């Protein structure tokens, strides 16, 4: 009878388990890091989307207010589109005279004339209202076609201002 050696393989040692408390802390930290990173990314994406919407609404304004290389025209465009209406109303004669004489073909400035016309009609106690209304009406009547297309409908009301 022959005896064969029998090798008993010892079970591989189990990797040391992480203590439950440490595992919990690690999972918690991972979750918190994910939450922070995800929140930041989400906020950034949301802000970007929101900015896009705003840019979309004011896209014309942004494009129209890009520098033309002419400081006077830039100022007139700012008054026309961006400046508070009170400022435009205060500088009405400068705006109407220069825009109608030197920049008649500018596509942006008629927006200022239209803003001014609306403001005059909506502000009964405006100082020199009748004079400004007549001046605005005259500039529209003598203006180029693109100005008339935008603002001629205000002329009858402007002429009735007392």
């Amino acid at each position, binding site marked *: 009878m022959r005896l064969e050696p029998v090798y008993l393989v010892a079970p591989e040692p189990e990797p040391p388990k992480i203590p439950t408390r440490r595992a919990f802390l690690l999972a918690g930290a991972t979750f918190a890091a994910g939450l922070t990173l995800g929140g930041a990314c989400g906020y950034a994406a949301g802000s970007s989307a929101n900015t896009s919407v705003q840019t979309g609404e004011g896209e014309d304004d942004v494009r129209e207010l890009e520098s033309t290389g002419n400081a006077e025209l830039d100022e007139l465009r700012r008054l026309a589109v961006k400046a508070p209406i009170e400022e435009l109303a205060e500088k009405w004669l400068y705006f109407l*005279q220069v825009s*109608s004489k030197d920049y*008649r073909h500018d596509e942006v400035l008629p927006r200022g004339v239209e803003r001014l016309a609306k403001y005059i009609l909506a502000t009964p106690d405006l100082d020199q209202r009748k004079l400004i209304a*007549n001046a605005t009406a*005259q500039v529209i*009547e*003598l203006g180029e076609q693109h100005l008339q297309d935008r603002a001629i409908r205000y002329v009858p009301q402007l002429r009735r201002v007392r």
Partner: protein
Amino acid sequence: MQNGEGIRVSTTAVSGGSITVNVGPTDDVVEIGVLGGTATTTHHVPGDKDTLIPVPSAEAGSLLVVMVGKGKRKRRIVVTIVAPTP
């Protein structure tokens, strides 16, 4: 007469007539034109003296602009065209 900064001028003028302007001592040129139009005429005037300058033709009720100075120092005053008295 109405006063601007360095300019005095009548508030009304007769179309095709003349108008009195008085500018300060540092200005010697007056521009006048129809508001909303492209044409202006330029007149040399002595400072601190009443001077008559011609008024462009325009309908009664139209507005003229009288200007003195240059660039950002340019001052403007509006003058209303009135019908000539019969």
